[in-house]
């Protein structure tokens, strides 16, 4: 019997949509044709044949997606300790609130007075996020973390343009998420890599060496992607500010420090939050998310338009902001995601949010201590919300991080993040989050120890894994070499 909850059971195969269906079936309930037909009058030149979609019955569609869903694994299925992703429980009540008919049906382009409830949600959420980070002003428009980063980089650019300064480099630590350099580059900056220190955090001396008047500043993640708090953050931000630069904070790891760290006091000028991580909105197998940016007062004029302004007893939208970087989204960003985060913050309150961070850090340290005998610890110091191991100990048995990750699938766990951050070869990054209980962590630890034992004693089993899943290891090279992107 495997020590994890993973087992084999009955699941059903299902073909591609267009391998099913018969012309003439439908799963759509046709509304009444209560007006005369006149589409026939249209200019033939402009007409098409309509798309080549399969026709399916309602039962066909229901079975199709029901079956597909059973090949997937979500947080509701089991533990999902994907580092840097904060896969915590996504409360169902938030889904229900977002589906409130009046909220879900609201049109984004009507007069402000017709939309007060929606504007109130956004205004209050901005206030909450400002309180949570310690920052002064917030824009909710970015549709994900990377778009938040982009907003930040554009603010940098606008800020220096306005000051009349030409700077085009930006410091980015080697532990940064790939979106950081990509966002910086998109906004015309040249990333300069900052090596993290031997203890996994940034050394102010190195920053001081690299920071100059051609550099807009630094873009760092705190807690960083090794799960460590940048303890010299105040020195670093002082150095950057000293050279006239700005500091961008990637706040994707905010779940570690709610109510515990004040980012403004750390010297951060602008930061984004990932609501789909810290604020428990579901990740939906890839999105939608939301990546609000929070800034210090000085940078507020640069935030995206429209801005939501509270008048005496109503809210309104302001678009006349000459310094703004402009609009990032057709409307207000992923409003439905904002609603969920708002609902989460209201459900939790200050004390529980802080406690959530404390427990998230407790859980990570517990896993870290419990697995340190069997996995190599990349940096041997207390961690924040996640701990990073590597496959160093397993290499002698020719077992890689990938093999262990795939074996965890058989045991019924979603693998941790692997091979990231890049500075740790064969990284295994575990973020349990606060919603996992001790019993479940203990079981996970037992399983990981068992996998480590197998790595020593029965390596072939690991290389052959996963064995329980509907498909076995997939050929990613083939997929990339001869791409087949549509059927």
């Amino acid at each position: 019997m495997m020590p994890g909850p993973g087992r084999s059971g009955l699941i059903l195969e299902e073909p591609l949509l267009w391998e099913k269906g018969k012309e003439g079936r439908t799963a759509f309930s046709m509304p009444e044709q209560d007006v005369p037909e006149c589409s026939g009058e249209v200019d033939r030149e402009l007409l098409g044949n309509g798309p080549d979609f399969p026709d399916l019955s309602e039962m066909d569609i229901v079975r199709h997606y029901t079956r597909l869903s059973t090949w997937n694994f979500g947080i509701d299925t089991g533990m999902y300790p994907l580092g840097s992703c904060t896969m915590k429980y996504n409360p169902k009540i938030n889904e229900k609130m977002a589906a409130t008919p009046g909220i879900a049906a609201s049109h984004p382009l009507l007069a402000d007075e017709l939309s007060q409830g929606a504007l109130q949600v956004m205004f209050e959420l901005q206030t909450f996020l400002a309180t949570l980070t310690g920052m002064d002003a917030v824009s909710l428009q970015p549709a994900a973390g990377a778009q938040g980063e982009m907003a930040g980089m554009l603010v940098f650019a606008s800020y220096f343009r306005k000051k009349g300064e030409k700077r085009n480099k930006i410091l980015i630590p080697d532990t940064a998420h790939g979106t950081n350099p990509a966002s910086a580059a998109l906004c015309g900056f040249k990333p300069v890599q900052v090596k993290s220190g031997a203890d996994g955090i940034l050394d102010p001396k190195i920053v001081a060496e690299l920071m100059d008047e051609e550099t807009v500043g630094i873009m760092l993640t705190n807690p960083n992607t090794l799960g460590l708090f940048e303890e010299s953050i105040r020195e670093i931000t002082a150095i950057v500010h000293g050279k006239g630069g700005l500091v961008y904070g990637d706040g994707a790891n905010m779940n570690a420090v709610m109510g515990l760290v004040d980012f403004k006091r750390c010297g951060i000028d602008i930061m984004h939050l990932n609501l789909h991580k810290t604020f428990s909105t579901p990740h939906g197998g890839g999105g939608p998310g939301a990546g609000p940016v929070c800034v210090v007062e000085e940078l507020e004029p640069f935030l995206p338009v429209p801005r939501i302004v509270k008048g005496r007893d109503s809210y309104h939208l302001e678009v006349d902001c000459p310094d703004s970087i402009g609009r990032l989204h057709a409307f207000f960003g992923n409003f439905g995601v904002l609603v969920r985060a708002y609902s989460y913050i209201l459900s939790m309150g200050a004390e529980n949010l802080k406690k959530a961070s404390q427990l998230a850090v407790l859980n990570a340290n517990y896993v870290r201590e419990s697995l340190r005998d069997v996995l190599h610890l990349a940096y041997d110091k207390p961690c924040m919300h996640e701990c990073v191991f590597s496959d160093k100990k397993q290499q002698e048995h020719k077992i890689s991080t990938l093999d262990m990750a795939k074996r965890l699938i058989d045991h019924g766990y979603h693998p941790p993040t692997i091979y990231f951050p890049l500075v740790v070869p064969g990284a295994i990054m575990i973020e349990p989050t606060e919603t996992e209980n001790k019993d479940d962590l203990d079981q996970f630890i037992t399983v990981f120890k068992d996998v480590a034992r197998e790595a020593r004693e029965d390596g072939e089993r690991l290389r052959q894994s996963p064995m329980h899943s509907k498909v076995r290891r997939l050929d990613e090279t083939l997929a990339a070499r001869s791409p087949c992107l549509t059927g």
Partner: protein
Amino acid sequence: MRYLPHTDTEIMEMLAVSGHNQVEDLFAHIPEECRYQGEMELPEPLSEWALTDHFQNLAANIRSSSAKAVLLGAGSYSHHIPAIVPGLINRSEFLTAYTPYQAEMSQGTLQGIFEYQTLTARLLGMEVANASMYDGASALAEAILMALRLTRKKHTVAISAAIHPHYREVVRTYLQAGPFTIVELAVGEDGRTDFSALANIDDLAAVALQSPNFFGVIEDLERAAQTIHSADALFISCFSEPFAYGLFRSPGASGADIVCGEGQSFGMSRSFGGPGLGMFACRTKYQRSLPGRVVGETVDVEGKRGYVLTLATREQHIRREKATSNICSNQGLCALTAAAYMASLGGTGMRRIARLNYDKAAYLRKGLVEAGAKLLFRTPTFNEFVLCFDDDFEPVRNRLLEKGIVAGMELGNFYKEYKGAYLFCVTETTSKAVLDTVIKELRI
């Protein structure tokens, strides 16, 4: 708190393992000056029930959504959503999964997105599609950036002034940091894009149109393709209302090189403008320049068909600053929703609903014209159209508002030249009774 499972005893046991006495010790290494001062000032926690009451009050304070009908699209459309679509897509295995990095336990999402890519490509008449962008506006911006990458040394793009004004703003935001010039093509008297300015542009990389455009007008895409291609530029065709392609020829079939736009119409509620769906498709030859995630078919060690995220070398997590885009999280669940929606319609349903949208809009348009309104443009439209009025329309609009009908949107904020003109939208969700009320009210 029901989301926090730890009992006090467990906390003590766990602390003991790392040799700590109290939870605060875990944060001891955070410098004092970085610490949060005092407690956060947030409202007291609400129970599920108090929260529900709060949301009821909020919703009651969104008057537009209690309206009987909102005869406005402008990038956000009201379409019927079959009960099965949200029901299936919100199954927790889809909803609470992360991006499918571990393919073996994500085949549901992966096959679903592969199907989305395929249906999207078929709808738009293209060969490949990606797994989604944030929205129609950023999709257009990314399409232009892609075209600029493809055409290398050219730095000018021309965009039609008939593209959704917000989309154009987003394009400006995205392009502001680069060495690019954006030329706007004027709107002709027929409501279509006027290409005459193209002739004067040197390093033209791409031209972007929208069809149906912001005025609901169907652009002549085939002729546009000829014009643009003979200017040696790439043709980007965008949209905010994909239902049009159930009736009108697809941009791909008309010769576009990149097609992108907003997919909110396919199963997403308006939700104050988001989440929607950036749809994005192109020709196979450009697939390695695509921004965003894509899913590809492959086989497992036993030769069984399966799906993986692929062409990762384009992406930020591999190529970092050299990536084709910085996008990481996208609108995955919305893409899955759109696929389920397109599949629920089927080809037959898609054609029928598109026609019904056309017919209903035509009914209102004709009725209002008979009642005295004037068409701003006489070109064929889909769903949306622009009217002018001899007298001020505001009093009529206000009377209708009192009856719970939002009748169109004045265009002055978007186009000074069309001040006093109103953009209307009718979909299959609006009953003839409502349309008749509007027509009657204008006659009064």
